[in-house]
């Protein structure tokens, strides 16, 4: 029989309030997006899809969405390849300075995004690079590499290295053992790292703020502009679409690895 405990009740209440507070913005945005009213209002007099129709004809949104997806795709692919290489090197290499390499690969995570954005901008000016798409892709890859490497190092920690020896005994070369045995076994970790990389790029504004151009303007930068211009509930509809898309990606990641492992790792 459980004893009533004031302390546990208070902790539980605080936890409930904290969770509710976390979710309020999401619920609010979704609710407003279905409101028929022109001002931001909760849908008290019926539901409407008019803001979703408005999204359909909002050219700047579709342009920005395409830029964001293209850049996130390039950055994710590059970060998955480079991050996987880094994690393999640190885990299997055991060379002198492996710890240093690991710290260096992780270091972009520790630095303020605004600082990274300014750094990329200053360097690109110094070297005369002005292609915004390239700069965005490079900047986002820098952010994403540590996310992939971190997820993968966590998966490698529970990886049984004897299957490499088994593969080699069966006649695989080391390279093909890595490519055909180790990589498939780590696919869930690589996939999860990729999801994080994609979300980090898709969501990023602090680097994009400095290197985006009028032609290559990712969605977050476009949305900041909508908000500064004083938006109508179309923005809420866009936000709702993004929330749903994120939830779907997270569910996929959960299927692949299990969120509890990600959260604890």
């Amino acid at each position, binding site marked *: 029989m459980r004893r009533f405990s004031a302390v546990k009740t208070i902790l539980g209440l605080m936890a409930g309030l904290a969770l509710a507070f976390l979710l309020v913005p999401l619920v609010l945005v979704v609710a407003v997006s279905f409101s028929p009213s022109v001002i931001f209002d909760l849908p008290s007099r019926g539901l409407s899809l008019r803001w979703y129709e408005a999204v359909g004809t909002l050219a700047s949104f579709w342009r920005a969405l395409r830029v964001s997806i293209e850049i996130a795709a390039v950055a994710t692919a590059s970060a998955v390849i480079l991050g996987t290489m880094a994690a393999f090197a640190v885990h299997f290499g055991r060379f002198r300075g492996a710890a240093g390499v690991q710290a260096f690969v992780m270091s972009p995570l*520790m630095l303020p995004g605004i600082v990274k954005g300014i750094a990329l901008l200053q360097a690109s000016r110094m070297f005369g690079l002005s292609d915004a798409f390239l700069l965005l892709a490079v900047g986002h890859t820098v952010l994403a590499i540590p996310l992939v490497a971190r997820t993968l190092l966590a998966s490698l920690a529970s990886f049984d290295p004897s299957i490499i020896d088994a593969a080699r005994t069966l006649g695989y070369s080391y390279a093909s053992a890595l490519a055909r045995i180790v990589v498939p076994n780590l696919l869930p970790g690589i996939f999860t790292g990729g999801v994080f990389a994609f979300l980090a790029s898709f969501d990023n504004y602090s680097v994009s703020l400095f290197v985006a151009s009028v032609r290559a303007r990712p969605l977050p930068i476009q949305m900041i502009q909508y908000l500064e211009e004083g938006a109508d509930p179309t923005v809420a509809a866009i936000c709702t679409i993004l929330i749903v898309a994120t939830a779907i990606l997270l569910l996929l990641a959960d299927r692949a690895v299990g969120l509890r492992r990600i959260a604890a790792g």
Partner: protein
Amino acid sequence: MSASIAAPRAERNRASTTLAASLLALPPVAFLVVAFAVPMAIVFLLAVRRPEGFTLQHLVAFFATAAGRTMVANTIAYGVGTGIICCVLGFPLGYVISRAGPRTQVVLIVLTFLPLCTSVIIKGFAITLLLKSNGIVNSALMAFGIVDAPVRLIFTEVALFVGSVNVFLPFAVLPVYAVLAERGRDLEDAAATLGCSPAFALFRIVLPLARPGLLAAFSIVAAQAMSAYVVPTLLIGDRFRVLSRGAYDAYILHDPVGASVAALVLLVTALGIVSLANRFAGTRRAVA
């Protein structure tokens, strides 16, 4: 092939494969040197260089202005305040998640994760809807007759902290959950068996166990808040200028040196607060 022949060969294989694996580090390290380390070096050089050598004059000039000092003070107050509030709210949630049954646990983690993966811009926008003068909080306050006229909430410190805690709270919950998930449940049970009150168990067992998690939570939240740009911009604006905003404004005004100085000061401030927190807590655990 007998085992005695296979063994040295496996040994040799392993040495060469270790080398091959080490070489995999080259492409990512080379990329990060070019795309990350060199640009960072350029920023810091811009902040401390003049044509004929090195100088601290840009940094001195920054701290000589009241605006510069205010930005540093605001950034620290903002980061530390957000960090503390997030720890206070994040601890109960992290603890409850760590002690929930397996199914409830997954649901709670997803609910904590979903806001984490939602854009800061979306959440900033939602907080605006909540707090503006004809927003939901004001409508509720007036409907219940608590106030007669709308209270000014948006573009105040209240809005700033409400919004920031909302954005950064998940970063405080997850480290607490991570340290408590694996340990402590049996200790709590043992304490209860020995007649220890839940309050005693909380303060003498759970909180000490959670300390590394809370420290990580504070460091992550404070560091992130100090470098945040969207939340301060949308929720308080120029009334409360922080370094990230200062850096961006300098960039807009075509002042690369000013932007670099603000970026350098921001980085040093953030690292300083995190290392102070580490020293204060008496542990030296890596953050993030």
